[in-house]
């Protein structure tokens, strides 16, 4: 039978199926962080059991960590307690932790790939919905709740119904100013935030084939924002080159054998999907969101649409925006370049290329937050730090930061923030904060201009 990439990986990880119920799916790698793991460790304690396969668990501290003075104890008592609890739990249960101060620390979805923990053909989970990021490698990766974190601790498996399959094809030629973030924001704006619910998505077509691994991660990262459990892209030479030589990737003969296997993973010609959508790359432009869910996005040159729908009206009210008006030229006061969507080296190179030789607007506070210690090091090695600092951007230490504002990096109530993160929900970046999602280049350009600008015209 002809199989999809998703089928191939899923089917080889099913141990058995519960009658009229879910599959028992074996998990190769389990990533954890401080926010969604403490109660799962407590469940182990309550049951008096240990972690079944501690070597397959990798931990980091990212959501709560400050992005300044990381060498000092965390000031916020609750955050400090949660981060310390993670260290204690990892120590007690024999889990490798890349905590604060460790050269591998960073946002869980940035460090997995960069350390070679993430590999094609794997099943991976994390108590975090953006686990979908790892699908960029041709892995099945998805977010789980804390009860399931405990289940994976206890058995290295979860009980889960096999999702349906969807293929999203984007082909043709992109405008040179269009970035991977624009591609995925466009797709979500077209399909809506619930179109993917119940599905696992494969992104295919020349646009994704030609993308770097960083770009593919940005796309897969946001598959959850259209409701899909995860997104995947077939592994190819770009993938193999990225994985090769990384800290925890297989080496030498073992790597060769793996690559031979990974080459068998792409979807068979003629395999069928439960749903399929096609888009022409030429229709995509630089994108921005205007509402309070990631599906409320438009091309930056377009008008905000209008609708009488109660939720739509409520959303625009929160955003302080009006239907049938343009976002272009609207003043903004904050810019955030970071998060697991766009905090890899390529994102900062793109932002720096735009900023170089310019100054940020005096009316804008602009934050640059690398996704990991390694990315932070690379920024310095390439001299991008000088570009950011002399342009007036604040370069911070790695973490989730203003993506969800659990630390001190909050956007004030009522302020507009052009953000490279993935969620523009009410209050996501701070109570009352108004988030406009966009690509790193669009965000950088907004910081320089002090207002929303169309980077395809600059």
């Amino acid at each position: 039978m002809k199989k999809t990439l998703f089928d191939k990986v899923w089917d080889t990880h099913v141990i058995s199926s519960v009658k009229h119920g879910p599959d028992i799916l074996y998990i190769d790698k389990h990533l954890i962080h401080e926010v969604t793991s403490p109660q799962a460790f407590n469940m182990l304690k309550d049951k008096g059991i240990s972690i079944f396969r501690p070597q397959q668990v990798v931990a980091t501290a990212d959501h709560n960590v400050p992005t300044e003075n990381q060498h000092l104890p965390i000031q916020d008592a609750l955050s400090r307690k949660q981060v310390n609890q993670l260290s204690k739990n990892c120590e007690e249960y024999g889990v490798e932790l890349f905590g604060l101060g460790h050269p591998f620390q960073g946002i869980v979805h940035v460090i997995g790939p960069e350390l070679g923990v993430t590999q094609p053909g794997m099943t991976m989970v994390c108590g975090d919905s953006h686990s979908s990021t790892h699908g960029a490698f041709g892995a099945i990766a998805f977010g789980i709740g804390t009860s399931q974190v405990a289940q994976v601790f206890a058995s290295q498996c979860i009980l889960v119904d096999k999702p349906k399959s969807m293929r999203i094809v984007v082909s043709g030629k992109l405008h040179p100013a269009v970035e991977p973030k624009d591609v995925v924001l466009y797709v979500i704006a077209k399909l809506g935030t619930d179109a993917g619910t119940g599905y696992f998505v494969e992104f295919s077509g020349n646009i994704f084939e030609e993308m770097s691994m960083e770009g593919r991660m940005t796309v897969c990262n946001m598959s959850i924002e259209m409701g899909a459990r995860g997104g995947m892209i077939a592994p190819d030479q770009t993938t193999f080159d990225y994985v090769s030589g990384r800290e925890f990737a297989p080496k030498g003969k073992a790597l060769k054998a793996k690559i031979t296997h990974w080459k068998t993973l792409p979807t068979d010609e003629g395999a069928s999907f439960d749903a399929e959508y096609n888009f022409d790359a030429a229709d995509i432009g630089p994108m921005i969101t205007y509402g309070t869910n990631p599906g409320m996005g438009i091309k930056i040159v377009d008008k905000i649409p209008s609708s009488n729908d109660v939720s739509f009206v409520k959303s625009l009210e929160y955003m302080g925006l009006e239907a049938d008006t343009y976002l272009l030229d609207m003043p903004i006061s904050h810019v955030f370049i970071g998060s697991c969507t766009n905090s890899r080296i390529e994102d900062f190179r793109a932002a720096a290329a735009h900023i170089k030789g310019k100054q940020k607007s005096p009316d804008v506070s602009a934050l640059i937050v690398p996704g990991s210690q390694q990315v932070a090091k690379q920024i310095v090695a390439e001299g991008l730090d000088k570009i950011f600092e002399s342009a007036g951007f604040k370069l911070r230490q790695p973490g989730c930061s203003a993506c969800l504002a659990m630390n001190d990096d909050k956007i004030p109530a009522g302020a507009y923030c052009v953000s490279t993160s993935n969620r523009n929900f009410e209050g996501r970046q701070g109570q009352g904060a108004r988030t406009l999602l966009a690509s790193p280049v669009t965000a950088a350009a907004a910081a320089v201009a002090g207002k929303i600008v169309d980077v395809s015209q600059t």
Partner: protein
Amino acid sequence: MEKFTLLKSSMVPLTVENVDTDQIIPARFLKATDRKGFGENLFRDWRFTTDGQTKEDFTLNQTKYSGAILVAGNNFGCGSSREHAAWALADYGFKVVISSFFADIFKGNALNNGILPIQVTPENLQSIFSAVNLDAAVKATVDLENQKLIIDAADITVSFEINDYKKMCLINGYDDIDYLISQREAIEAFEQKRA
């Protein structure tokens, strides 16, 4: 987990669509290391102003609405995977959520915490909203054994879907974790075969 069989209760309507888990429980309340007390902060920013005043018009603050059933707009529970959202709903006292559509991860989290998500058609959802709007005391009966939702006032008697395994878990109060632990031998055999 508590057992779930039959529930008869009035309903709390929340007509908003795409309610994400950041609204159900904002990130700043996720710093706890245990799972108690989240109900206090359920829908925090919709319930209270920044200076802690009660927002009278929000559904949870309207005394006429009460009960263990939340009726919510389409695509409930989207966004973050935080199980804290399910803990908050359960801690507040909700046992059932009715909507025309649920996000995947939320649905799983709800079931793992003894909350039953019931999906109805958009038309039925509208009828329920109208019925509750006319009379806040209208009651619904949820019969899990027979997978029936009955609301006489809205002229609704519908069957809802739930897979047999999850139904069995809810009725008996079983957790997935015990089942998986019982499978360790098969899991080890699978690992051996792959190695």
